[in-house]
């Protein structure tokens, strides 16, 4: 059990990196969806 802190650290780091990446994908998706909506709206208004 001497090595347990290293095992804990390794799995914690792996999980944190994966969660941060998935969260960043989610954030980027929300931002891009919003930007796309805004662009479509402004283009519609421009063409009127």
């Amino acid at each position, binding site marked *: 059990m001497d090595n347990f802190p290293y*095992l804990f650290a390794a799995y914690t780091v792996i999980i944190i*990196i994966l969660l941060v990446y998935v969260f960043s994908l989610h954030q980027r998706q929300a931002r891009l969806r919003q*930007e*796309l909506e805004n662009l479509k709206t*402004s283009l519609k208004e421009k063409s009127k």
Partner: protein
Amino acid sequence: MNGKIANLSLIILCGILFIVALYLVFMWVPTEANQGIVQRVFYFHVPSAWVAFLAFFLVFLGGLVYLKKRDPRWDIMAYSAAEIGVVFTTITLISGVIWAKPIWFVWWTWDARLTSTLVLWLMYVGYLLVRAYAPASQGPAFGAILGIIGFVDVPIVFLSIRWWRVQHPTPVIGGGSDAGLPGSMLLTLMVSLAAFTVLFALLLRLRYSLRQMEGEIEELKLGGGI
């Protein structure tokens, strides 16, 4: 709609596989006699490296087909795979460093396997930087060339433990007569490999759709004079 169902199916499959993998890693598989409990890092360290290799193979393939056909879908696939490959190479490097300390008594050693993996990481970080700063018209071609050249390092990383005397353990699968894993360890590794591969497929789908959206926004901006 089909895309959403596919994503949901992958999320459910991925969740089930990771739950089974974590159960096998922490509750079922026996502790390795020489290294002790820290050897369990192996079951996520190796699949991370496998996913990184798979991702960089797709960057290589996407680059080749893009240069031949100039079809942007291949470039989107290559770019998405490169980003995910960098994430999984980061996981491989960091989990390896943490595993090394109690076994080798050092965090890092400049042996062929570790150094070539670090070079691999640097090359694909370079790929992402080139894509971020190159003009939009030239980025895909530059990226394709870099992705093809960078892939040369993948077989070097893989074969380094066969070609040179290294600190890193010799291959446990296909490594000769004295190599091999007991059945329980092999099964745990296979389930982890499956979980990581499905996670990769899911992340690739998500990143691909984001890249498409980025392209759509660029086109709207150019077309609408915004």
